[in-house]
């Protein structure tokens, strides 16, 4: 056996850059403030720190896996390149007209988000395909050359090409790309039939433009990063985490940077999936709650749920429709504006509302004593006894409960005739209910019943709220793993190499053509495999096949997973049976006598994920030593309880503590309500479970 490789995981987040080094001696991790001007600086700083801690030379690192919010932030902050769009004549304004609807029905002063490219950077050419890919108006090469010369004169750095129905016939887009390569060799080109070959022009064009818009920035950053790492002696291959939860090569990332959007949270989901595998859990709800948002993701059989479209840069209270759609394979997460810093107020109906407005770190919640006078979730947590005022963030930020009470009284208590505790209870219940509702809706959309799920909680605020969320969702167990503060970066090290290819090709089941399906799958498989192959020339690559099916006339297709055998020998009857079974799971009953069609085809080529070793059972070793008791409010019964205080370092494997209890550590506190107990597994993971579930 060769020695286990030394690998580095790097996650650039909005505030911190997390760096994790895994080596034969264990794991070293650090957090460095993100350096916006040159993000690679923070990485190098972190690299030095973890190498020093582990006693490992940079040259000994065999692989670096990187994920980043830089792509997302460039879209949100509109810091992209000077970019032009070439589109079909008559359709110049697709990305500006959006869905022609208002995402908030009752606001007369609604402002729609600005399109990524203003109207004068959107150009058209005479050409047209029909819905089957037939040419209605041929594209004239001379006209393209004239247009490209105009773009060259205007000095564009990057050009997006999005033509109608190009997902079924890409010939015109390819011709334009060819002319661009000839006449604007320095400009970067993104064509929609490559970036996102899916039907629905608004989503496809927007995704392609987003790719073009951030491409120069990301390409230059990735190039600099590789050079800096090499200069530090870390000349090993660098790979990128993508939004679908896999890893791709640096070259692919530079070509399709839009696939890096949300790669950090995707790492978090992979982290949770790995914990799930170690603990032998088939159905997991991952719950990541930080300072401003909470993210929820479903994990089945070790795989996070994926989707084909999502929305970034929401401009209006995280409201659906207020951002821009990106159609790429992505880990399907619900993000809501609920974090430790989320602020509360009382609306005109006397209802307590929490978030999405956040106190941030400055001024922060009222209890930070930095001038914040509005109650945040952290203030409620403090008043309810979930946090120790003298030991927050390892004692580095002293908390002032009186300031919390004053803020709660002023904003909530005085309005509703509640004392500060009841106001805190109401605030915490509302934020927990908001998160529970989001989880429920997400589960229903996926046809899942959460009561047989286990939660995995990470992120600073999650362990404070996870148990109450479980009570609300009827979930019996919640795992709080170690290293939760750098979960995404650890997740990167667990991710497989992968690339998902998608195609929109309509096929009615009555016209099912097995030969065509075999050819299509083979083409897509070789495309997806080539991407993975570019990461590793020798590794074994597997392919997962999916078809998205619906009844003819429906607008929403559901994913139907195929086994390798079913994909290799496609058969209409089998496909139909699979579809009906999945449809029934989702919506209760099939619709008799309706034609069924396949709309989208998907092949995900990937290596096997690092095989997580199942943990050994650990024998119960009795209750951990308690360092006294403190007041803890129990929201389920609405009463105060006396909770045992247990230090996490005293929760040796096999140790337990009975709720009500608080398990304290430097980064956060794990709340164990009266209905639950907590048990430490051999890997240090805390298992907060109902007393009935515990043996």
């Amino acid at each position, binding site marked *: 056996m060769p020695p286990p490789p030394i690998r580095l995981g790097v996650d650039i987040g909005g505030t911190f850059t997390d760096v994790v080094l895994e080596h034969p001696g264990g794991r070293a991790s650090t957090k460095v403030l993100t350096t916006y001007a040159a993000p690679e600086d923070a990485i190098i700083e972190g690299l030095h720190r973890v190498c020093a801690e582990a006693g490992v030379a940079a040259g000994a690192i065999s692989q670096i896996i990187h994920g980043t919010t830089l792509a997302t932030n460039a879209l949100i902050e509109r810091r992209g390149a000077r970019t032009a769009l070439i589109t079909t004549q008559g359709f110049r304004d697709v990305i500006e007209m959006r869905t022609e609807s208002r995402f908030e029905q009752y606001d*007369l*002063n609604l402002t729609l988000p600005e399109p990524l490219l203003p109207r004068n950077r959107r150009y058209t050419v005479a050409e047209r395909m029909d819905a089957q890919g037939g040419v209605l108006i041929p594209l004239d090469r001379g006209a393209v050359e004239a247009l490209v010369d105009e773009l060259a004169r205007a000095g564009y750095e990057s050009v997006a090409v999005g033509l109608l129905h190009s997902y079924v016939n890409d010939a015109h887009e390819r011709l334009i790309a060819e002319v661009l390569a000839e006449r604007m060799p320095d400009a970067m080109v993104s064509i929609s039939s490559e970036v996102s070959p899916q039907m629905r022009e608004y989503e496809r064009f927007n995704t392609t433009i987003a790719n073009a818009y951030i491409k120069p920035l990301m390409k230059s950053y990735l190039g600099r990063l590789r050079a800096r790492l090499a200069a530090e002696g870390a000349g090993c291959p660098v790979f990128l985490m993508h939004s679908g939860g896999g890893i791709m090569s640096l070259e692919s990332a530079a070509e399709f940077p839009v696939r890096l959007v949300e790669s950090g949270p995707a790492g978090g989901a992979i982290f949770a999936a790995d914990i799930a595998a170690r603990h032998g859990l088939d159905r997991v709800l991952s719950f990541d709650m930080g300072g401003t948002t909470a993210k929820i993701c479903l994990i089945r059989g070790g795989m996070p749920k994926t989707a084909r479209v999502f929305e970034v840069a929401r401009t209006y209270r995280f409201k659906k429709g207020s951002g821009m759609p990106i159609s790429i394979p992505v880990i399907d997460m619900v993000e809501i504006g609920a974090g430790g810093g989320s602020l509360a107020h009382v609306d005109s109906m006397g209802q307590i509302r929490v978030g999405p407005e956040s106190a941030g770190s400055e001024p922060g919640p009222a209890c930070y004593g930095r001038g914040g006078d509005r109650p945040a979730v952290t203030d409620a947590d403090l008043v309810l006894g979930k946090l120790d005022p003298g030991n927050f963030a390892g004692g580095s930020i002293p908390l002032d409960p009186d300031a919390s009470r004053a803020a709660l009284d002023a904003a909530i208590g005085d309005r509703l005739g509640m004392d500060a505790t009841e106001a805190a209870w109401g605030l915490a219940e509302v934020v927990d209910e908001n998160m529970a509702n989001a989880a429920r809706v997400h589960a229903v959309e996926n046809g899942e019943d959460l009561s047989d799920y286990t939660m995995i909680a990470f992120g600073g605020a999650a362990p404070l709220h996870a148990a109450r969320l479980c009570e609300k969702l009827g979930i019996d167990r919640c795992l709080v793993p170690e290293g939760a503060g750098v979960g995404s970066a650890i997740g990167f090290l667990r991710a497989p190499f992968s690339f998902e290819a998608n195609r929109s090709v309509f096929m009615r089941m009555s016209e099912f053509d097995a030969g065509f399906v075999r050819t299509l799958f083979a083409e897509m498989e070789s495309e997806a495999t080539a991407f993975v192959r570019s990461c590793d020339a020798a590794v074994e690559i597997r392919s997962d096949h999916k078809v998205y099916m619906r009844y003819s006339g429906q607008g929403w297709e559901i994913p139907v997973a195929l086994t390798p055998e079913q994909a290799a020998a496609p058969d209409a009857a089998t496909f139909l049976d699979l579809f009906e079974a999945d449809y029934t799971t989702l919506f209760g009953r099939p619709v008799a006598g309706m034609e069924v069609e396949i709309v989208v085809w998907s092949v995900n080529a990937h290596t096997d994920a690092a095989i997580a070793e199942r943990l050994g059972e650990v024998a119960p070793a009795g209750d951990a030593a308690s360092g006294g008791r403190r007041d803890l409010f129990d929201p389920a019964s609405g009463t105060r309880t006396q909770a045992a205080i247990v230090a996490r370092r005293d929760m040796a494997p096999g140790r337990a503590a009975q709720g009500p209890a608080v398990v304290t550590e430097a980064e956060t506190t794990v709340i164990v309500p009266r209905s639950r107990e907590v048990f430490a597994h051999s890997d240090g993971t805390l298992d907060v479970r109902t007393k009935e579930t515990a043996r």
Partner: protein
Amino acid sequence: MNAAKPERSQVAHQVMWNRMISIVEEQAQALVRTAFSTSVREAGDLSAGVYDASGRMLAQAVTGTPGHVNAMADAVGHFIRRIGRDTMEEGDVYLTNDPWEGTGHLHDITVVSPSFHEGRLIGFFACTAHVTDVGGRGFGVDANSVYEEGLYIPIMRFATRGEVDRTLLAIVRGNVREPDQLVGDLYALATCNEIGHRRLIEMMREFGLADLAGISDFILTNSRRATLERIAALPPGSAEGHMRIDGYSTPIDLRVKVTIEADRILSDWSGTSGPDPKGINVPLVYTKAYSCYALKCAIAPEIPNNAASLEPFEITAPENTIVNARHPAPVALRHVIGHMVPDTVYDALDRLLPDLVPAEGAGSLCNFQVSLRPRTDAAAPDGARRAEVLTFNSGGSGARPTLDGMNATAFPSGVMTMPVEATEQVGPVLIWRKELRPDSGGAGRQRGGLGQFMDVGAREGHEFDISAMLDRVDHPARGRRGGQSGAPTIIARDDGVPMRGKGRQFVPHGRIVRMAFPGGAGYGDPAARDRAAIARDLALGYISADYARAQHGLEDQEIAEILAGRERG
């Protein structure tokens, strides 16, 4: 769960109210995911709500259809009366498309399901969706009475104790053009109520509720109080609003008198034109919905819709006006008039509460339905086929007191347009153009939103009828406080043959229908518009050099400089 406590805490009630709003959103989402008609699944033309045992609406999903607001609130009462509370059993599902007891035309199917908990009737779920076809003459203006507009389903049972009525399905199938699609939609409607019901029962178990009485009182009391506080804060008074629009046979005058009192707001539509012989008449329930929606947006936008928050808005109209049409008036396109209701209300409200409401906008959606068939003037190619294609589109919205109008964005309706690529998959239709219409926004200190161009034809070998549903051909949106009118609707064939804004019209093989949808009106004096905003409009091509010169007095040199900047990208 613990036994129910006698006094439920305020915190528990807050949580349950939240939960019920989440439940109806989930119910609506399930409908979008399972529906067949593009109007539901792509455009979001649907509603969903939950009711207490006496039929009072407790929560309604916020969907794209303000027109369903009051209609949904009233509908369950009609079902209780017609079906009979005592005959209701677990697993029952009822339905109707009655325009007067549902939501205003036969194309909206409303489905109501009773909710039982531990053997007791504790509430109802209702949902409504706009389906593409119900037979008759098809979706359009052309009928002379509601009898010609399609199949009428009185309030009746769809399923009894879970058993679907096969006779009803057979009758439905035999009377509509797309039977699979409609029957699929009926199932989708029933399913979405079932999902809401399941979630409600889970909530009741969690909180140990035997019925909805306590939470119902909490929701309605707080909503009523909040709404009344808003109204009490307004200056009392009365003002009249007026708007003239195209109509069908003759132009229509919409007139409303809005009166703010201490504890209610009255909207009286006396003086409005009489009914039209063709299908643009509006049942009162739909007028109520849009009047109420307009007032809520302006006065109490964040208070959710329920029986109590809607109550203080009283809407009346004399019988036999176009906004209170009686059976058997044709009503298929009631939305064309109904969508003009808010701007008429705002004309009155602007006199009572200045600087609050927008200038007039495009108002009604710019919809059309295309009926395609193999060409009949010559041999049609193999593979030519029939298809019905409905599209929803929007003109510009009116400028606001401090903001420009929104380009090609629906108001008051909130439905979405369909992607062109999806529309062209439905049938052999070709959308040759769908883009913004420069210069169509009315000039003002704040500019009206732009309308859009849309060109429609058919694939080789097909001809079609287009059923147009357009207004504002002769009556463009009017500006406020010196703002200019938006551009009117234009519709004509590409060979110059003029077409009408409303009605089914034949388009021969090879011809294209060119449409320009109206812009929103401006707000305030165009001379007061910020120079940078004018320069930006010109640089982006929202306005032309001519418009900048004529409306804002820009000099030629200034224009040349701005346009040169545009060339440079």
